[in-house]
């Protein structure tokens, strides 16, 4: 074993009942490097993290830390050894201050009494080292998501960690926050810290990584210095085939206006006017917090509007509840499928038919119909599952999204509102979701798609509206859609 390796995995195998996740997997991490891990969802990235953080034990193989073999890793022993995992979801006490969070469980004390001044001083020192303007006395729940991530990194420093594992840290970050995070990571690495960085954003890989490992189906496809790979080659390794970066979609004739909002106000959005035509995909762009999701909630009747009106097929309708919207053949695929799209503990056979029941006026429901219909959608949408009795929690992100789609397809909806349809979904499954969406357009259905993914907006949209501060600030036609045009309006540089 060479001297500069801090962490090494050799011959790791891991299986869950029925599924082999890892087979004979090798991995190593050098001192002072950023090692990025790329792979589709379901490739095994999260299992890898769980094995390194002690949450799960490998079935076979060995893990070496600092050259010594470690057995029976637990989350606590991993942390004590110096491996700190920072998960995608935040993991702190939102009502406590920064300093209380940093030292939770490892308070500095003078004999028996906790010494607050010492902890504040230490916290300030670490925050200064990270070039952060967060105060140790800030309440963590009130910080932005970028600052919260910095607090979690600071916590790793308090623990004297040698290895930091970052899982998709930049989801819902602004560009400034991303830049700051990268700066922090680079500073840590230059002082000998090792970082495992997992991301779906390939551009981040090129900015940060020293080496990149691509995993697919629990096997290592390649490990290479970042200088010797390209975006194309990484994607090819991840999916095992060539895919174009920009999805090439087919276009269909666009018909009359089917859905219209006039001067819609409420729930944090102001004076929204938009129309949607038959067979059209209307993109909604904007930065996080610009009111896009709030608009979607309003259009679907999940929140009440205080002013304005909605017309469907030219007739004015009152969408006071989701049920009313569903009866007008709207559907809403939310941003957070786990929190508001799926019944995670329930089998697919209960997840898929639920809206269809609610929509009909008959009081009865037949389990045999549930199973038959669910099986039909599992087949047509290609949901990878051992069966319709599998609970939704155990599916991968892309398959969970397909379950949500199946739920709405069964209602024969005409107008689809997608909020971040491919968030947290890997490249291969993204393309499948796009194909499904294009299929909807071909059938003459209409889509409103909120997205933060520029290539997605640009490739998929027939028109784009850009939101900022709760208002629509620009409408861009097919010909004018470009990254620069959208960004210009979304960040407001056209006004200054």
């Amino acid at each position: 074993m060479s001297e500069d390796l801090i962490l090494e995995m050799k011959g790791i195998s891991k299986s869950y009942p029925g599924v082999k996740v890892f087979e004979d997997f090798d991995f190593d991490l050098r001192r002072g490097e950023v090692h990025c891990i790329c792979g589709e969802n379901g490739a095994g990235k999260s299992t890898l993290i769980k094995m390194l953080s002690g949450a799960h034990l490998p079935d076979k193989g060995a893990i070496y830390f600092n050259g010594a073999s470690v057995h029976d890793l637990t989350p606590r022993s991993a942390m004590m050894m110096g491996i700190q995992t920072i998960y995608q979801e935040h993991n702190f006490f939102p009502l406590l201050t920064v300093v209380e969070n940093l030292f939770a469980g490892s308070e500095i004390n003078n004999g028996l009494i906790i010494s607050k001044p010492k902890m504040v001083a230490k916290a300030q020192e670490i925050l200064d080292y990270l070039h952060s303007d967060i105060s140790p006395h800030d309440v963590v729940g009130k910080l932005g998501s970028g600052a919260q991530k910095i607090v979690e990194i600071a916590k790793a420093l308090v623990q004297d960690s040698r290895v930091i594992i970052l899982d998709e840290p930049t989801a819902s970050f602004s560009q400034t926050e991303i830049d700051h995070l990268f700066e922090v990571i680079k500073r840590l690495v230059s002082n000998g810290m090792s970082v495992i960085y997992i991301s779906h954003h390939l551009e981040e890989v090129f900015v940060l990584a020293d080496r990149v490992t691509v995993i697919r189906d629990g096997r290592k496809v390649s490990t290479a210095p970042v200088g010797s790979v390209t975006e194309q080659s990484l994607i090819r390794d991840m999916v095992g085939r060539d895919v174009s970066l920009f999805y090439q979609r087919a276009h269909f004739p666009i018909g009359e206006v089917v859905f219209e909002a006039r001067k819609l106000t409420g729930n944090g959005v102001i004076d929204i006017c938009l129309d949607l035509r038959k067979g059209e995909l209307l993109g909604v762009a904007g930065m996080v917090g610009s009111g896009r999701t709030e608009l979607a909630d309003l259009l679907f009747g999940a929140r009440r509007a205080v002013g304005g009106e909605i017309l469907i097929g030219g007739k004015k309708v009152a969408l006071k509840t989701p049920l009313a919207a569903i009866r007008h053949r709207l559907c809403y695929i939310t941003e957070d499928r786990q929190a508001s799209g799926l019944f995670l503990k329930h089998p697919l056979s209960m997840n898929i038919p639920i809206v269809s029941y609610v929509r009909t006026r008959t009081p009865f429901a037949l389990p045999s119909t549930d199973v038959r219909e669910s099986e039909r959608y599992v087949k047509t949408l290609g949901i990878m599952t051992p069966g319709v009795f599998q609970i939704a929690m155990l599916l991968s992100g892309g398959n969970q999204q397909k379950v949500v789609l199946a739920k709405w397809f069964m209602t024969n909806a005409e107008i689809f509102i997608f909020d971040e349809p491919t968030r947290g979904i890997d490249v291969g499954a993204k393309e499948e979701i796009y194909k499904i969406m294009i299929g909807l357009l071909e059938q003459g259905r209409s889509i409103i798609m909120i997205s933060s993914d520029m290539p997605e907006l640009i490739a998929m949209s027939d028109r784009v509206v850009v939101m900022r501060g709760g208002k629509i600030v620009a409408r861009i036609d097919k010909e004018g859609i470009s990254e620069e045009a959208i960004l210009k309006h979304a960040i407001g540089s056209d006004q200054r």
Partner: protein
Amino acid sequence: MKPSRLIRGENGPMFLVLLTTIVAVFLVELLFVRGSDITKVAFIKPMNISNVLMQISITGMMAISMTLVMVSGGIDLSIGQMMCFLGTAMAYMMKNVGLNDWTVVIFGLVLAVVFQVLMGFIISRTKLEPFIVSLGFMSMYKGFTYLITNGREITIGGKFGFLGKTYINITDDFRLGMPVIVLLLLCVIIWLVLKYTKFGRSVYAVGGNENAAYLAGINVKNLKLWLYALNGIFVAIATMASLSRMGTGNPLMGEGKEIEVIAAVVVGGTALSGGKGNVWGTFIGVLLLGCLSNALNILGVFPHWQYVLRGSLIILAVLLSYYSGQRASSVKSPVLTGQRSVAK
């Protein structure tokens, strides 16, 4: 239903626990109490079984509607005191106001529904925890009970006998009381409702994920409201059965029932977090706790120790069902769970 399906199904683990308990009690009584004389074993005498069924019927009725409430993610701690309140109020109406049986039945149902709708309204329209709101109602009911009775029983002089004192004799010493029949009927009805109606699906959906249920078009607030109202109706029916059997409106008639009921529902596999549970599981839970009480009496366990033993056995039963449930849900083989797989 084939026996294999009983064991492998969702309620399988608890069913096994129930069987094991029955066999264990039988063996203990046979070997240690009756000196291996099988004809003397009281636990399996038909008359004893009739009695056990009768004893569990009232708890059972309340446990069914509590299952619905808990599957939807709620809880109702007020049911025990509500029983005291309804029972004494109905007895008062019968004795002091002189209403006839049927008017009292309607009075009881209306009273229960009015209060439960009020409670359901508060729980469904605010963010208050059902635990706390129902705790408040529990205390209010206790107050009403004492205002009505001043702490004394109200006898109803043998009236109202139909619900509690009618029996169907199946053999000479095995008979089914009316409350048992009512319990079985209610079980079947609610089982069918949960399995074959939109309402049933909605109950699971709301308990599984309230947000997703709302966006799927379910009127979450009203569903919760009606579940508490339904719970009121079931408690009223149970109260009538109890009143009829005892012949008196006792201010302590429902004391501690909420604990008994919630224990049975949880032992029966309903998750406190909602979204999971079913009627037959609850039925098994009620039966299991009923058998235990009966067995402890037959075996002559000192009453004070009975509480201790019962409590430990509840925890043991839940532990067993938790671990077996965990094993069953981590094994994803469709063959084992008796389910068809989907051809790709």
